[in-house]
């Protein structure tokens, strides 16, 4: 115990450095977002003479940022739901029963965890254009729902393993059918697993950039991360508004994380260990 205390100054110094590198960039962007264009240019580290919301007004004025948020919310919400629905079913029978294709399914899904997103993007780009779902919410929902399969599958697979099969057998003896047993007995018990997959899915696709970039071209389906790319080119000269745009786009994610941090941290660890 004594020796533990001796090392503390050094550990606290490193912790301080960590807190600094984590918060300094975003704090600087936050403070600068209230400065005027000339204030930003004259000194990077000065405080705003009088906090101004002009940059935020500009950010709202030059891009329909609320629309991007709405797009993101719709796309992410529906994708999380679809992934949860299809994976909870697939992982259930794969974890509970023996059948010929079982090892193939597990191997395929495990392999797809390693697949670099860009490598398959050209066929998706062309198919989506041919099917007229390029630059639509449906297009991104399809990709994101599928992107969630590998990680969610292994989280759910191992979660079902922890639920004793006797519970279902009791339901069958009571005369419940296969689907009813799954929906009313198993699924409620698997809620924590579903919550984990939902959180992981949220973090991954709320921030997803690459497919949103190549599969959208207009405001119709543009998501929040792509809005940043759009701002970057729009505000190339009026960069003071860029500071406000960054804060507007990261604030909801940070608030979500702070309020849900216990669940987020638990999900991240179970996702990595099982996935």
């Amino acid at each position, binding site marked *: 115990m004594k020796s533990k205390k001796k090392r503390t100054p050094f550990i606290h110094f490193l912790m301080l450095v960590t807190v600094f590198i984590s918060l300094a960039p975003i704090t600087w962007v936050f403070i600068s977002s209230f400065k005027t264009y000339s204030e930003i240019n004259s000194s990077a580290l000065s405080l705003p003479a009088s906090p101004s919301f002009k940059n935020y007004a500009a950010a709202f004025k030059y891009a329909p940022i609320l629309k991007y948020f709405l797009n993101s919310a719709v796309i992410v919400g529906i994708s999380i739901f679809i992934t949860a629905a299809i994976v909870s079913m697939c992982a259930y029978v794969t974890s509970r029963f023996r059948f010929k294709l079982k090892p193939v399914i597990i191997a395929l899904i495990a392999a797809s965890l390693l697949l670099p997103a860009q490598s398959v993007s050209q066929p998706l780009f062309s198919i989506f254009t041919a099917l007229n779902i390029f630059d639509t919410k449906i297009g991104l929902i399809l990709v994101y729902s599928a992107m969630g399969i590998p990680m969610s599958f292994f989280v759910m697979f191992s979660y079902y393993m922890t639920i004793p099969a006797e519970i279902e057998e009791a339901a*069958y003896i009571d005369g419940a059918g296969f689907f009813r047993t799954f929906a009313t007995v198993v699924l409620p018990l698997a809620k924590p697993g579903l919550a984990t997959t939902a959180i992981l899915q949220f973090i991954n696709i709320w921030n997803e950039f690459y497919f949103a970039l190549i599969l959208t071209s207009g405001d119709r389906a543009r998501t929040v991360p792509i809005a940043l790319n759009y701002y970057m080119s729009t505000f190339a000269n009026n960069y003071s508004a860029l500071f406000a745009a960054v804060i507007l786009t990261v604030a909801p994610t940070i608030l979500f994380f702070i309020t849900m941090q216990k669940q987020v941290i638990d999900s991240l660890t179970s996702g990595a260990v099982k996935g």
Partner: protein
Amino acid sequence: MIRRKGVWITLFILPCMVLFAFVYAAPIVTVAATSLTRYTAFEKPAFTGFANFKTIFGDKDFLISVKNTVVWVLLQTTLHVSVGLVMALMLHRKPKGWKFTRTVYLIPNIIPTAATGIMFTLLLNPTFGVIKDLFAFLGVSGPVPNLLGNSKYAFWAVTATWIFYSAFNTVIFLAELSAVNKDIYEAAAIDGATPSQVDRHINLPILKNAVGTCVILASVAMVSQFDIIYMTTRGGPGTSTLNLPVYLYKAMLLENNYGKANAVGVVQIILGVSLVLAIRRLFRSGDGRKTALN
């Protein structure tokens, strides 16, 4: 006992597998097949054998993008994972404020990577970024270098935007350590082990598998690293920050050369898989806990 079990199994698997086939399986087959064809946005695929592969392996830019990708994988699997490991060993000693530090450290990893890209573009801007004040503070005279816009520094400037932000790894290591039976630490304390001895002889061996997992995740992430590079340098200046994903993106959407893009995709997949196999070999141990990845 269950009636028509086979039918139910099929019904339960089908929706997931259909979507999987549509977004993963069919495209992979298409990529492999069309990498052997001349295929652009304007013409249908026509078989040309390995012509695309000959083209890209004869292209200096492509070779540089492979090199940059591999260097980033090496840095990420060693330095980045080590940073996360050191943080975890430190925070596992539960110093005052460890939970706060863990939470704050996660923030850069939670926000959209596109935002991280913009933030560093702003920070490093030579006209109005913090870098200007930093140089003034250090008393460096002369013009402030544009770290992201100068091919001498761009690679390292981009690397700096992600290499230290290793909180996902830290969280995984901390979870692994918190599952350890506390008796071990008590026994070590009774035997008079110092904290660094505990780290070396207890914690590090325990974390071996978790380190393996994190190294694989780091490698996979770097083989497909795109967002930050696109937001900061788009692979430039010149080819200084060009990697496989950016090269593929350019071949596909700027050159409209789909056959070439898919040949790059094949290389990207092979590189990713070989790296993972190599890492698994490196971390293989008889009693290793089984996960999907290692």
